[in-house]
């Protein structure tokens, strides 16, 4: 695909709103950069609380991305490759966290895994206390990030079609072999970008975490929560940490683009 082909069919006026849109997205980033106090930037982002929040964010986001892959890939496969009654409804419900405000997700999780929640008492009997633990952060992040992975994979599976899988099956390959040798390699780029999306969403999770997990340094206070809290007392620190989060996001996008072009 060359750029020239596009410009030939794209009306010239489309560039005006497109440019405005780009400015609208980029200008706030520029504005934030202009507010960073570079003199104490390093001190602010390496303070004890900042480092604790960064480490916790990375740890929890990696864990929740893993849970998303473990549950999300089979979910996408079932949704794209099987037919059963109520599938349409189930599909819509599974994607609900995409459109729900995260704080609503947090409330829902609270009434599920909280001490007095649906599963809370049974979990407590087993000696598991989710509330105010790092596990609660991972649950909140997984809840909001899972649909991102499922939706990108399901789309890719439908686009790829079943032809190669059918051929492999007629040649005698068992379902698991078809899955690992035909289906998954076909959707590998989508799996990559879906995983990156899920990671990014987990990293930015705020509403569900603050509602469901609480906020304690090193345990549940992730980077977005730390930024929100620092804003109360030290706006410079909040801006500096925001920039760190932007840099991580840029890195993640960069990796996903490189990964995709290599595949």
């Amino acid at each position, binding site marked *: 695909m060359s750029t020239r082909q596009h410009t030939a069919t794209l009306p010239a006026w489309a560039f005006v709103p497109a440019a405005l849109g780009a400015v609208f997205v980029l200008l706030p980033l520029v504005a934030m950069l202009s507010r960073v106090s570079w003199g104490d930037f390093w001190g602010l982002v390496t303070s004890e609380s900042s480092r604790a929040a960064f480490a916790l964010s990375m740890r929890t986001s990696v864990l929740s991305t893993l849970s998303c892959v473990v549950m999300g890939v089979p979910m996408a496969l079932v949704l794209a490759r099987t037919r059963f009654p109520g599938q349409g409804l189930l599909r819509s419900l599974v994607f609900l966290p995409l459109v729900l405000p995260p704080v609503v997700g947090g409330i829902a999780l609270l009434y599920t895994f909280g001490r007095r929640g649906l599963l809370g008492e049974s979990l407590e009997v087993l000696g598991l206390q989710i509330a105010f633990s790092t596990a609660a952060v991972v649950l909140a992040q997984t809840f909001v990030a899972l649909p991102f992975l499922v939706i990108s994979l399901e789309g890719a599976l439908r686009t790829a079609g079943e032809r190669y899988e059918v051929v492999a099956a007629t040649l005698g390959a068992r379902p698991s072999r078809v899955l690992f040798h035909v289906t998954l390699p076909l959707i590998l780029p989508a799996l990559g970008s879906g995983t990156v999306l899920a990671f990014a969403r987990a990293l930015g999770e705020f509403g569900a975490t603050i509602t469901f997990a609480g*906020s304690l340094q090193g345990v549940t206070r992730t980077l977005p929560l730390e930024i929100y809290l620092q804003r109360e007392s030290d706006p410079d620190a909040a801006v500096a940490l925001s920039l760190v989060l932007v840099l991580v996001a840029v890195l993640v996008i960069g990796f996903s683009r490189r990964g995709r072009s290599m595949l």
Partner: protein
Amino acid sequence: MSVRRLWAAIPLALLAPGLAACGIADQGDSPTLTVYAAASLRSTFEQLGEEFEEAHDGVEVALSFAGSSDLVAQVQQGADADVFASADTANMDKLVADDLVGEGPELFAANTMQIAVAPGNPAGITSLADLAGPSVKLVVCAPEVPCGAATIRLEGAAGLDLSPVSEEQSVTDVLNKVVTGEADAGLVYRTDVTVAGDTVEGIDFEESAGVVNDYPIATVAGSDAAGLARQFMDLVLGATGQRVLAEAGFARPRR
């Protein structure tokens, strides 16, 4: 027009039709008094706002509630507030330091802390010292917000070392953790327990008298409705305001 201003104008030009449609650009005939008040003043100031509207024909009182430091930041960024009521003197001092205060500040109420527990007090908490127990799931405000700063002072005064399971962003978040039963106890303002009604129980403790939060009120410098702002301040400081505040559990200001 400098390049910088031109750049600033682009998103505004883009957003203008949308904002106008939302009514933000709409300036009605009736004068509006915008009051910024700390979140803990919600129920009392809503009541006082209605009284003010009744007494002033055609005047509309627009109330905005948030954490005091949030509100200060908004006023510092040029928000169109006429009156500011803070939950602590530290945040009001920030406005004074920036020359953004017109008349005032004057103290209009005081608040002390109380222990909030779930109804029936399942963890059997009777004193501040009980909160330091190892099996008690205690939730407090983070030291960065006024109620957390008060909690730290309380700890110091009582010589206790509390280890909360969570340091929340606001009193509301603390209360919510107690109401839902996630936490056994929370340290909040007395008035928050009053507002929460039957969903939580308040437990008094003697050390609370040593840590009092003073609530100052002031008009914002450069207000378009300076006269009305002063009158609203007088309402809060006067007999009506003091009655409404006392009913909600606020103590009289320490003047």
